[in-house]
C-alpha cells in the first residue's frame, strides 16, 4: 500500500514532465532534445523569483508559464519554422530537429551555467507532510501529482472532444491531409510547440519545489519524458499519463520488494519489453512495420 502510494506520486511527476514533449513531438513533430533544458530553465526561474522577491512558486507559475509559451513560440518561429519549410521537400524533419535541438540544448545549458554556475539549486516550498489514507506524502509532491492528473485529463478531453482537438489530431496524424481541408498546419504546429513549452515550464516549476537541480540536469528529464511519451504512444495524453504512472509504480515496487539497485534497470526493461510487444506504444494507433 505504501509503495503503491509512493509509486503513484512518483509516476505523477514523470507524467507531468512528459506532457509537454508529447505535445511537441506528437503534434508539432519536433523531436526536442532540449526539452529538459526548458524544464530546468523554468525551475531556475522559479528559484530566482522565490529567493529574490520571495514569490510563492504556485503564483510564479502564472509568470513562468506564459513566458515559456511566448519563448517557445518564438523559438519555433526562428529555429523550427525554416526547418519545417525545408523538410517539406526532403522529409527529414526528424533528423534536422534532432540536430538543431541538440544545439539548443548546449546553448541553453551554457547560459544557465554562466548565470547560475554548476552549483545545486534547491529551495523548500510546501515541504510539509500530508496524510493520505494513512500514508504521509509531501504536499509539493501531491501538487505535482494533482497537476499531472488535471493537465493530462483535460488535455486528453480537449483533444478527444473539442473542435480544436480534432484539428490537432488531424495535424498530428496526417499533416498533408489536414492542409487539404484548410487547416493552417504550420500555425497549429507552432501553437502546439508553444503549449508544449508551457507544459514543460509548468513541470519545471512544480518539480523545483521538491527536487534539487543543476544547470546540467536537463538531460535526465528529456530522457524520462521521451520514454514516457514513446511508451504511451506519441501524441496521446492519456497514454503519457498512464505510462508515467506505470513507471512510477514499477520503480516503487522494485525498490521495495526486489532491490533499489534495479529500479532504473527495471524502468528501461519495462520500456524495452513494451516497445517490442507494442511498437506503437500502449495507446498508439500508428502502424509500425
Amino acid at each position: 500500500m505504501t509503495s503503491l502510494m509512493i509509486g503513484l506520486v512518483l509516476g505523477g511527476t514523470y507524467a507531468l514532465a512528459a506532457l509537454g514533449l508529447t505535445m511537441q513531438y506528437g503534434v508539432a513533430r519536433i523531436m526536442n532534445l532540449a526539452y529538459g533544458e526548458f524544464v530546468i530553465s523554468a525551475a531556475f526561474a522559479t528559484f530566482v523569483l522565490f529567493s529574490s522577491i520571495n514569490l510563492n512558486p504556485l503564483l510564479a507559475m502564472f509568470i513562468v508559464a506564459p513566458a515559456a509559451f511566448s519563448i517557445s513560440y518564438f523559438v519555433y518561429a526562428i529555429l523550427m519554422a525554416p526547418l519545417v519549410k525545408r523538410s517539406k521537400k526532403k522529409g527529414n524533419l526528424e533528423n534536422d530537429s534532432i540536430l538543431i535541438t541538440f544545439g539548443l540544448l548546449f546553448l541553453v545549458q551554457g547560459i544557465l551555467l554562466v548565470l547560475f554556475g554548476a552549483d545545486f539549486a534547491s529551495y523548500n516550498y510546501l515541504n510539509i507532510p500530508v496524510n493520505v489514507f494513512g500514508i504521509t506524502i509531501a504536499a509539493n509532491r501531491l501538487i505535482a501529482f494533482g497537476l499531472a492528473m488535471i493537465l493530462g485529463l483535460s488535455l486528453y478531453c480537449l483533444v478527444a472532444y473539442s473542435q480544436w482537438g480534432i484539428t490537432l489530431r488531424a495535424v498530428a496524424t496526417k499533416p498533408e491531409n489536414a492542409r487539404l481541408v484548410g487547416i493552417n498546419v504550420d500555425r497549429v504546429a507552432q501553437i502546439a510547440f508553444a503549449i508544449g513549452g508551457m507544459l514543460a515550464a509548468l513541470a519545471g516549476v512544480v518539480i523545483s519545489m521538491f527536487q534539487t537541480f543543476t544547470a546540467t540536469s536537463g538531460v535526465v528529464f528529456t530522457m524520462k519524458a521521451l520514454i514516457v511519451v514513446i511508451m504511451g504512444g506519441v501524441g496521446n495524453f492519456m497514454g503519457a499519463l498512464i505510462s508515467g504512472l506505470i513507471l512510477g509504480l514499477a520503480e516503487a515496487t522494485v525498490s521495495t520488494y526486489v532491490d533499489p539497485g534495479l529500479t532504473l534497470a527495471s524502468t528501461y526493461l519495462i520500456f524495452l519489453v513494451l516497445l517490442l510487444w507494442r511498437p506503437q506504444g500502449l495507446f498508439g494507433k500508428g502502424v509500425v512495420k
Partner: protein
Amino acid sequence: MITGAKVSVAIIAFGLLALLPFFLEAYGLGLMIGMLSYVALATAWSMFSGPTHYISLATVAFYGVGAYTVAVLNEGISFPVILLIAVLIGLVLSLAVGVATLRLAGVYFVIFSFGLAELVRQLITWYEVNVTGTLGRYIFLPLEPQDIYWLLLGAATLTLIIGWLVRRSRIGLALRVIGDDEVIAAHIGINLTRTKLLLFALSASLITLVGAIQAPRWVYIEPSIVFNPTVSFLTVIMALLGGPHRLFGPLFGVVPLFLLFEWLSANFPNHYSIILGALFIAIVFVLPNGVLEFLDRFRLRRAKT
C-alpha cells in the same frame, strides 16, 4: 572506379599516419587518438545507420562493453586476446539485441537504442555491486599512447576497409535498397532481418573494438565513465554532419567537429556550451544536411559521366 592511384594514395596516407607518433608530442598524439577513435566510431556507426536511416544511440553501449571487458580481463591475458574477446562479446550482444529490436523503425528505434545503453549500464552496475562487490576497476597495462594510437589507426583503417568491402558487396547494395524502400527490398529477394542484423552486428563489433582499445588510456573505469551518453550523441552528430551515406562522409564530419570542440574547450572553457550550441544551430542552417548534400551532388555528377 577504384584505381591504382587511389590505392597508392591510401597506402601512402596510412604510412604517413603510422609514422606520426615519431614526430608528434604527447598532446598532438592525444589529439590524433581522440580523432581516430571518433573516425572509427562514426564510420562504424554509418556502416549500419547510414544506409538504413536507423539512428542508433546504442554506440556507447558497445563502446562501454568493450572498455569494460578490458577492465575485467586486463590481468593475466595478453592484450590482443582481450581485444578479440571484447569483439566477440560485442558480436554476441549485438546479435541478441538486433534480433529483438530491428523490427522497430524510426524514433522508436532511436529511443530503444538509447534505453539499451542505459539498461546495459544499469545491469553491469548492479552485477558489479552485488556479485563482484567492486565497482571501479583499474587497468594497468604497459601500453604507451603511441601503442594505443597505432591500434586505433588499425581499427579505423579496418573499419574503412570493411566499410569499403561492404559497399562493394551485395550486402552493401541490399542495405541501400533497404534504406530507399523496404518493400522493394523484400520483393526483390532481400532478407531484411538477416541483412540488417548482420550489419548491425558488424558495426557494433567494431565499436566494441574501439572501446576496448581506448580503455587502457583511462586507468580507472567505472560504468558512469565508460557509459557516458555523450559518446553516442557525438558519434551521431559527427556522422550526420559529414554524411553517413558515403564511406568517407563521417571523416568529413569528425575532423572539423573534433578540432572545433577541442579549440572551444581550450579557448573558452567557460562559454564552451554557448558557443558550441550557437555554432551547431548555425551549421544546421548554413550547411543544410551538412556536408552530405555536397557529397550527394558530387555523386550525381559522377553518375552522369
